[in-house]
């Protein structure tokens, strides 16, 4: 059964506007939160088990409790709305349709963290969304939920929206802060972490849009009730943006107890694969997480059904599993070519590398060149090993995790689809169209990690 916390009112006409949002229970969580102490809110969020929805899944309450509180120094909440991970478009959905949910969550989070000026950093291409957010901010301000002395609590808050200008790397939290300071989006060395030295060297919490939105139902139903939804350490609900070869692409809110099979094939979610095609592979958590072939997607290596939650998706590690990531669920049908798909991703990471670290700057370029060579029918068998070697040399050797994010998709493609790379090298006629070998209807045996 689906349990909706974030999108439960998304279908209501006019929910984008304050009055309608308020009529449907909006801003009640703020009223409740402002009667609590900031520490009590942090405790509620800890109890809820909420994990960051930006990709890493770090426990939000714990992150908030790490925020340094030196006397006389301002603290900041910055919402990460950079959403640039291929396959991910859930934050956009929240901001377009439920802007007040984000604003409400930001008021609560800012109060809990002691931020009197909070920013939303949104990717520049979402150029029409700042208008929606700014209208919501104006409405909330007129109604007394923003500005000075909110609801007589003595708490002041201003929220500003800042647009980026096209750079995936600005989703990485320290690059985001650099960009917000008016600089190139070069990630910073950590430590110091943003919780100690963030925006303008002040203590800062950076959270994803969905994470902040989830704070609203947590305050509403209590952290303990929120923790009862889902399973294990995958509490609450998760937004999944589903795309690729499925009948019903879109944004779905799931309770993390459903199986991957149900998510792909049931009419409530993706509605199966179009044209009676078979499922070949999937990248379930945004382009940076490992691709898995159909057989390992639906069942773990030990034969258990795989579920749509953090633990089950990563079961088996990178040898046979993958990750929940940002929830960008990319489905490939039997006609798709893994080599070509991986090549587009390699191009993406090369394009988006900020260039600070040699392994990332050079390695992503080499990976793209070699993949392009194989894809265009010029590949040699030794290229596959060279690719493997390059990705290994990037992983773990860079300032920020973009290097890993570039390496993992290539590693996983070779790990699970090495025969397809070989086939591509032996069968240059594949280049007429992006058709790979269609044998994943009959799953291949699991290849051990090299």
């Amino acid at each position, binding site marked *: 059964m689906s349990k909706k916390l974030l999108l439960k009112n998304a279908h209501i006409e006019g929910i984008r506007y304050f009055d309608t949002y308020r009529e449907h229970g909006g801003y009640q969580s703020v009223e409740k939160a402002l009667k609590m102490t900031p520490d009590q809110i942090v405790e509620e969020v800890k109890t809820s088990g909420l994990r960051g929805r930006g990709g890493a899944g770090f426990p939000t309450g714990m992150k908030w409790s790490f925020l340094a509180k030196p006397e006389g120094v301002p603290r900041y909440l910055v919402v990460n709305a950079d959403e*640039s991970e291929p396959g991910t478009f859930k934050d956009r959905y929240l901001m377009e349709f439920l802007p007040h949910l984000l604003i409400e969550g930001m008021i609560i989070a800012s109060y809990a963290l002691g931020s009197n000026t909070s920013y939303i950093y949104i990717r520049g291409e979402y150029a029409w969304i700042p208008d929606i957010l700014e209208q919501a901010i104006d409405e909330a301000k007129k109604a007394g939920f923003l500005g000075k002395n909110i609801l007589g609590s003595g708490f002041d808050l201003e929220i500003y929206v800042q647009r980026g200008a096209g750079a995936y790397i600005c989703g990485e939290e320290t690059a985001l802060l650099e*960009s917000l300071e008016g600089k190139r989006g070069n990630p910073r060395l950590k430590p110091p972490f943003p919780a100690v030295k963030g925006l303008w060297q002040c203590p800062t919490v950076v959270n994803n849009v969905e994470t902040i939105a989830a704070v609203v139902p947590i305050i509403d139903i209590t952290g303990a009730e929120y923790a009862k939804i889902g399973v294990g350490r995958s509490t609450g609900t998760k937004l999944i943006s589903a795309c690729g070869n499925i009948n019903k692409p879109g944004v779905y809110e799931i309770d993390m107890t459903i199986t991957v099979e149900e998510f792909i094939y049931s009419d409530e979610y993706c509605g199966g694969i179009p044209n009676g095609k078979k499922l070949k592979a999937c990248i379930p958590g945004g382009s940076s997480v490992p691709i898995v072939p159909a057989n390992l997607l639906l069942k773990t290596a030990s034969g258990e059904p795989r579920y749509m939650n953090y633990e089950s998706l990563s079961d088996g590690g990178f040898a046979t599993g993958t990750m929940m990531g940002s929830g960008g669920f990319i489905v490939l049908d039997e006609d798709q070519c893994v080599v070509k798909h991986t090549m587009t991703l390699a191009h993406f990471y090369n394009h988006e590398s900020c260039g600070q670290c040699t392994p990332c700057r050079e390695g992503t370029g080499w990976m793209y060149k070699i993949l392009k060579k194989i894809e265009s029918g010029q590949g040699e068998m030794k290229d596959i090993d060279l690719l493997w070697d390059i990705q290994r040399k990037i992983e773990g050797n860079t300032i920020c995790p973009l290097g890993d994010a570039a390496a993992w998709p290539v590693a996983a493609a070779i790990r699970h689809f090495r025969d397809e790379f070989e086939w591509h090298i032996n069968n240059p006629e594949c280049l007429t169209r992006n058709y790979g070998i269609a044998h994943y209807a009959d799953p291949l045996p699991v290849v051990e990690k090299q």
Partner: protein
Amino acid sequence: MSETIAFKPETLEKVKQIIARYPEGKQKSALIPVLHLAQKEFGGWLDVPVMDYVASVLEITPIEVYEVATFYTMFNMQPVGKYVLEVCVTGPCMLRGSDDIVNYIKEKLGIQAGETTADGLFTLKPAECLGACGYAPMMQLGKFYHENLTKEKVDEILELCRQGQIALD
């Protein structure tokens, strides 16, 4: 254009409001928003004199502007056509046929990726994932997205552009 580069008074007012979002002395934070305004007001790209002007408005050095302007893909360092067709070509869009859309546009307009038509109307700029993967194939045109593209839809869009009927802002 180098003699008289200056924002319109209402834009300058906007710049002031943007600077007021940040603490005292942190006006450099306004750089990206102000570059967006500059690109819009001064012909769709950022020529050196424009960047120098932005530097003077924000009281920072020109190099601080150049290094930022060249880092972000949305800032054009070369003149572009009136309509910049930014078609996403990353994996998820590719799975749903973005190649066909790009090829169709190339064929129809007789230009390659990155080029501008002779009449200065269209530039084709392949883009990386724009956060619309579920509504692929797609393109950005000005401020807005055009999603679930087909060849027919592309025809329609190009026609609307030619008639000056498409919303860019």
